[in-house]
């Protein structure tokens, strides 16, 4: 470390020590805010252990039964399976189509650029109820029966723009000289794409797919307009809310939550490791 650097570090440290008088205020506020924001999650989790049958409203004592007999209410499991299926299929289609658009947007010049941007932006700026009503009206007009297929069509549509935005940011952050190097070393365009571009884009594509899956999995409003009699997990909860939600729904939601949190933490640790390895 040079002398200048050391002195800046020292000055920074001094600045950090000289904190304003109310410096405890922000951490306290953030702690309280997080505690309040996490209440509904804790509540949902706690009530998955409630010894209740149909209406899981008041606390009746602790039990593990709900976790053991998740599919005792078959509709819950069917709805959950539908959600997984819809999420997987629409994520696969949306991620493929969206990645292609993102590549084209960054790499090529073409006319009607702003019209294309607008077409990609509009689905994100349209209230879900309008998208849902539009699709329902279209399916009605052309006489398509609502079901799993129409849900997948709808979910792919609203995930697409989010994939484009996420992957586009990754494409923009790529250093073009890496691909130039590949071409200079006589790599064919195909080899350059699959051996250089694609692996570098992969984290962005994975992030887009995860975002897309979670958007699809938790969507209710558009799904309700396009589902007919098929129920996804959120639709099941909405319908069941009128007569009481069985604790098994809380079990599934809590399990999904725990898996997702674990996956996020692992993903973070891996990318932190990668980052520190690249720095070396």
């Amino acid at each position, binding site marked *: 470390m040079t002398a200048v650097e050391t002195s800046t570090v020292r000055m920074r440290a001094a600045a950090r020590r000289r904190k304003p008088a109310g410096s405890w205020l922000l951490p306290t506020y953030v702690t309280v805010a997080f505690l309040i924001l996490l209440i509904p*999650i804790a509540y949902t989790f706690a009530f998955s252990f409630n010894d209740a049958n149909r209406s899981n409203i008041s606390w009746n004592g602790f039990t593990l039964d709900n976790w053991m007999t998740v599919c005792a209410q078959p509709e819950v499991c069917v709805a959950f399976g539908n959600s997984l299926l819809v999420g997987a299929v629409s994520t696969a289609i949306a991620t493929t189509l969206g990645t292609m658009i993102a590549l084209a947007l960054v790499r090529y010049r*073409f006319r009607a650029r702003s019209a294309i941007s607008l077409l990609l932006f509009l689905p994100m700026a349209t209230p879900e*109820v309008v998208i849902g009503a539009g699709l329902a009206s279209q399916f009605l007009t052309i006489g398509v029966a609502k079901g799993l297929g129409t849900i997948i069509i709808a979910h792919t549509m609203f995930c697409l723009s989010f994939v484009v935005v996420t992957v586009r940011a990754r494409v923009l952050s790529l250093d073009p000289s890496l691909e130039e190097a590949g071409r200079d070393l006589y790599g064919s365009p195909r080899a350059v794409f699959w051996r250089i571009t694609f692996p570098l884009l992969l984290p962005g594509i994975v992030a887009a797919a995860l975002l897309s899956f979670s958007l699809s999995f938790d969507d209710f409003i558009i799904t309700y307009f396009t589902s007919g009699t098929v129920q996804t997990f959120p639709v099941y909860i909405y319908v069941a809310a009128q007569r009481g939600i069985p604790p098994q729904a809380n079990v599934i939601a809590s399990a999904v939550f725990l898996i997702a949190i674990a996956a996020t933490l692992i993903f973070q640790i891996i990318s932190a490791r990668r980052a520190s390895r690249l720095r070396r």
Partner: protein
Amino acid sequence: MAISALVPAGTQVAREPERRRGGLIALALLVPGLAYLALFFLVPFVSLLITSFGINDTATYGGYYYAFYWQNYVDVIAQYWPQFVRSFWYALLATVFALLISYPIAYFIGVTIREHKMLRNLLLVLVIAPFFISFLLRTLAWKQILSDEGPVVGVLQAVGLMGAQDHITGTGFAVVFGLTYNFIPFMTLPIFASLDRLDKRLIEAGNDLYASHASTFWKVTFPLSLPGVISGTLLTFIPAAGDYVNASQSFLGGPGTAMIGNVIQSKFLITVNYPQAAALSILLMAVIVVIVAFYVRRSGTDDLL
């Protein structure tokens, strides 16, 4: 602008690559996705527009015939303007509250503890944690907690802040509370993304030049976080204005809290008056487009993505 602020932080834009001329590859990459959007976003919109001018046929279930009956719009405005006003009022309140609550959180994660990578990442996971558990169940959890038998009402009645006949659920307050709660992550993330990119030396420079903390904040920090604030407010306001879950009576709403989403939903799926439902949807979309266009223009950006 707007949405790009949502993209995970730390993605720096590399040297802009020179764009090649379009041609067949570009076309092949673009056409499938854009055709999909045209088919399942634009065409439904046109279908909605056509339906909105149709005449409802009361003789058949959900029947209507095509016409140019613009009276639909007059009817729905005359009948449902209170729900329209309420939707935008609730959405505005929720946006303001979410901004006030989220900004300090985003600031804390993005600026105050920027150097503590572990804590920072942990808090970010906590911000997005609600995304991993059904928002319907979370909203129902609030319903139980705020219900007449719940702990909050009990305490408030015991200390005399609420009368025995007062409720929280079923009121406009509960709906705005639910909307605010549901959209806090959508507000926090883009603001965080902006603040995370903020060069701390600018704040230090402000302090070195004897600016007070408040004036450094308003003259340096806040203007630089504006892109995040703008996308956060859009990501909150637009879906909140069209939401119908929070205001629904089996969730946090009551008889007097119906928003325009509730009207559209019941017209479309229960009373099956398609022309009126379509007219309401088109109106909602039109008002939002006007508001967003005005807002985006004020923020001085043209690049929508």
